[in-house]
């Protein structure tokens, strides 16, 4: 199973990023091989539709599970079409979140937001 997490830095001890679409990097973790790698989020600097493009990156990396603090409607449309399960992170390090997920301590993300679309954060 492959897990993705939006993160602030491309280092092992990075924190989870508060944003999904505009996270600087994505962390990918393969539970079988225990391999971790990072991908720069090219959507982070786009003027619009960042969530859609970011979701495309997640899909193209063959992810099964996304751990994220939040997710917009349109990004969720892409992720759900790809049958990717969404789980809500807690603030703190990506590793703590991955460990908690492995220990089955997570609840599914059900508060998909309508998106900001140029109107700033809520």
């Amino acid at each position: 199973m492959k897990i993705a997490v939006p993160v602030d830095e491309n280092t092992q001890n990075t924190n989870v990023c508060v944003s999904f679409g505009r996270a600087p990097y994505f962390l990918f973790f393969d539970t079988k091989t225990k391999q971790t790698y990072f991908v720069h989020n090219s959507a982070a600097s786009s003027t619009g539709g960042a969530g859609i493009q970011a979701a495309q990156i997640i899909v193209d990396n063959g992810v099964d599970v996304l751990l994220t603090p939040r997710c917009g409607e349109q990004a969720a449309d892409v992720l759900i079409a790809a049958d990717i399960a969404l789980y809500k992170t807690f603030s703190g390090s990506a590793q703590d979140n991955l460990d908690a997920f492995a220990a089955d301590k997570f609840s599914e993300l059900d508060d998909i937001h309508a998106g900001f679309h140029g109107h700033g954060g809520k």
Partner: protein
Amino acid sequence: MKIAVLSGKGGTGKTLLAVNLAALAQPAVYVDCDVEEPNGHLYFRPKHIVQKPVCIKIPQVNPTLCNGCRKCVEHCAFNALAYVKDNLLIFDDICHSCGLCSLLCPQKALSEIDKEIGIIQSGRADDVCIHTGILHIGQATGIPIIQNLLLEASSADALTVIDCPPGSACIVMESIKDADFCLLVTEPTLFGAHNLSMVHDLVTLFNKPFGVIINKSIPGANPAETFCKENNLPVLGKIPYDKHLSILHSNGEIAVKHSETYRALFSSLLDAVIKEVRHETAPHS
């Protein structure tokens, strides 16, 4: 002559001024570009209304022709497309109708179809033509409606008053683009002065001749007037803070039709505006 009435914030008196100027200047054209909540028509109560839909182009995919090359996904400047599990997903609300995807598609799998985003209503009250743009609820942008509206309302001889949406964003830029003159409405508050400064920046950027009208003017401290003095903005007139005027307007009445006092007040404003427009738009030799 096209005069755009704008302000940085809502509730300063754009519609009050625009409606009364148009009612005085007959023959006139009144254009309501505040497409998210147009209310100018409530004052004029136009008759013989003709309605036209406003559509934008959005891409549609023929799944049997699409081979998943993803050229469209990669090149869309707005990220309006995604490709998941052999399916192309199209996000209408993000699409800017640029047409690039259907142009690029090597399989000719993408075509453009019409999507209705709003309507334009045109009618008449006395010698005023009233054009109203109405954006459908839930649509992302009213800009295409304003473009169509200004085209529809184009008049060679009558005075055209463009009632703009509040603020200084793209939707306002579109509304003032063809205006000969911009009338900035403000109020004597700090908030009013701050927002006046923003629309002043906008009209300066667009190189538009402009003048300021101070609404709800009261004796004493007037941050908007101070801003005008400090920055050499021409104040063309003031509308005093007046409860009766406010009540008339709130009841959907056109003030100049109800009282000689208001007729005189708005006539002097219209004269000042026309004089300034002639002066500002005259060719400099």
